[in-house]
């Protein structure tokens, strides 16, 4: 879809002259079709890929895709809106269990189960959003941590989730093409959200709540919305996860999982979609690829993170405007559109 470039026709002196695409390209139906075509292309490519690459690498790609969907949600909450969340895995758990129960116990179609998993997680996202009314920064982080623990303990003790034994018998319904399409759709949705009045409002909450309020932004609303949408993505990711591993247990979604997810966002650059994707790829693939030095891989993994945080605390792509960087790399000169923002520096 068109990214709205904030240049306007030359009525105002100083405004850059607009880049004009051919008129038909700007029509909404055309752009909708182009997007669908992109999804089909992704599906086709990954179907082909699936036939060629070995199962192990395929699994890595698959889990990377699932993680991307989940971490994009966390990026929205923490990177874009500035609400530190240490319990993101709880939303993944809620989505996983909800989707699993839908297919196994309720015999609902898979797509519906996935959607419901996301929506139930979103509902809990709203619930977790309310403490943000009174808490901020470190205190909010503790509250999210507590929430994640509550979810884990509840899952361990409910009958319907089969408790500590774990939920088994889930059908394997997920393959690489599906995950790839959903991941691409997730990235697109996040990019569109970022480049909108809604996205700007969320960033203003991160930057300065008082100034945001004075500008007319209902900061409470957008914080809660961030949690809801972020949770939705995590819930869908959780549902995909459950139908990949066919067996889930409460300890899959504990604090370490939340930390992993946060690391992916922070590594790539908080607030940056491309950064989040990159960080997720690196931190999903690296432990697997370093398996050959498995005794030391956690050491290397941890050390890498520390080195990166010392030399690039903004994350790999933090502070980088992707369009400008690509143009410079291709030597096309600086972009003529007005840069509306750079991936947040985060906290």
């Amino acid at each position, binding site marked *: 879809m068109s990214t709205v470039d904030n240049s306007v026709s030359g009525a105002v002196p100083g405004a850059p002259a607009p880049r004009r695409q051919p008129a038909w390209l700007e029509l909404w139906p055309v752009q909708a079709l182009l997007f669908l075509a992109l999804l089909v292309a992704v599906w086709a490519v990954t179907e082909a890929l699936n036939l060629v690459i070995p199962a192990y690498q395929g699994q890595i790609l698959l889990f990377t895709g699932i993680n991307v969907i989940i971490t994009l949600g966390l990026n929205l909450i923490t990177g874009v809106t500035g609400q530190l969340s240490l319990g993101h895995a709880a939303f993944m758990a809620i989505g996983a269990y909800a989707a699993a129960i839908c297919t196994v116990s309720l015999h609902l179609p898979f797509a519906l189960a996935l959607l419901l998993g996301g929506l139930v997680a979103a509902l809990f996202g709203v619930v977790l959003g309310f403490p943000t009314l009174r808490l901020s920064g470190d205190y909010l982080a503790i509250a999210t941590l507590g929430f994640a623990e509550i979810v884990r303990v509840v899952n361990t003790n409910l009958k319907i989730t089969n408790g500590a034994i774990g939920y088994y018998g889930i059908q394997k319904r997920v393959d690489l093409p599906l995950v790839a399409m959903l991941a691409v759709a997730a990235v697109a949705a996040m990019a*569109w959200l970022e*480049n909108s*009045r809604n996205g700007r409002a969320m960033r*203003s909450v991160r930057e300065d709540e008082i100034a945001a309020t004075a500008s007319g*932004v209902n900061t409470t609303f957008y914080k809660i919305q961030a949690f809801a949408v972020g949770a939705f993505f995590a819930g869908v990711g959780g549902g995909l996860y459950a139908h990949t591993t066919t067996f889930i247990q409460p300890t899959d979604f504990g604090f370490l999982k939340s930390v992993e997810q946060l690391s992916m966002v922070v590594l790539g650059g908080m607030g940056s979609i491309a950064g989040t994707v990159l960080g997720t790829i690196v931190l999903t693939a690296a432990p697997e690829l370093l398996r050959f030095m498995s005794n030391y891989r956690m050491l290397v993994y941890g050390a890498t993170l520390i080195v990166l945080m010392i030399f690039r605390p903004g994350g790999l792509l933090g502070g980088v405007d992707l369009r400008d960087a690509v143009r410079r790399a291709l030597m096309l000169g600086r972009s003529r559109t007005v840069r509306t923002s750079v991936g*947040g520096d985060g906290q």
Partner: protein
Amino acid sequence: MAVDGVSMDVRQGEIRALIGPNGAGKSTIFNLVTGVYRPNQGTIRFGERSLNGVPPHRLAGLGIARTFQNIRLFSSLSLMENVLIGAHSRGRSGLAGAVFRLPPFRQEEENLSLQAWEALAFMGLDQKAGELAKNLPYGEQRRLEIARALVSQPRLLLLDEPAAGMNPQEKSALMETIRRIRDTGITVFLIEHDMRVVMGISDRVAVLNYGKKIADGLPAEVREDAGVIEAYLGTGGKRERRRTRPVVALPQVALEGGAGHAGN
């Protein structure tokens, strides 16, 4: 700091100044008007409607915009984006609009962009629209804050010490800018310490001291007022010793008008 029994009005189309020594309660008045503080007693009216209990984020939509004493910009965002956020109340699209991007959404984005450009151009910042706010020199940061306030097309603009930290040329330019703003039909209400600025542009001046209003009128009248002179300079001679008395908290006497208390 409490504000005690202050009654004042701002007339449409005027440039109204609020002055007084540090701690007199001027920012408290601003915070009362913008809903950050709620008054214990009294009402705050904007035209026909009461502002009591109106949540702060609704004020921009009602036509009240403000700048801050310590400059509150969205530092890691660009000038353009800062101003676009200022226009938040002028738009309506939400989550659905952003994701589906149908023509109404795109039209609204274009309109907001145009308004943002105009605000930046009005304040002379359009050439730097793509820069990050934190990279601007101080004077331009102040101008950006004003641009962000203007883009919401307010009826009333509150300026909190707009001349702070400016050199004389910048202050003269600021005075000219404020006049230009008033000429577009916006009422300006400002807190300011620089007397040249205040006396130079204000239609009426109100003076606070220790939470009470001690003078209110034309700049020339206020400048001659004995109480005002004493508040700022003290009087000489045997009264000199009194000036070092510590500031005491005022009793919360309910008088006519707005009495406000910091907090909630």
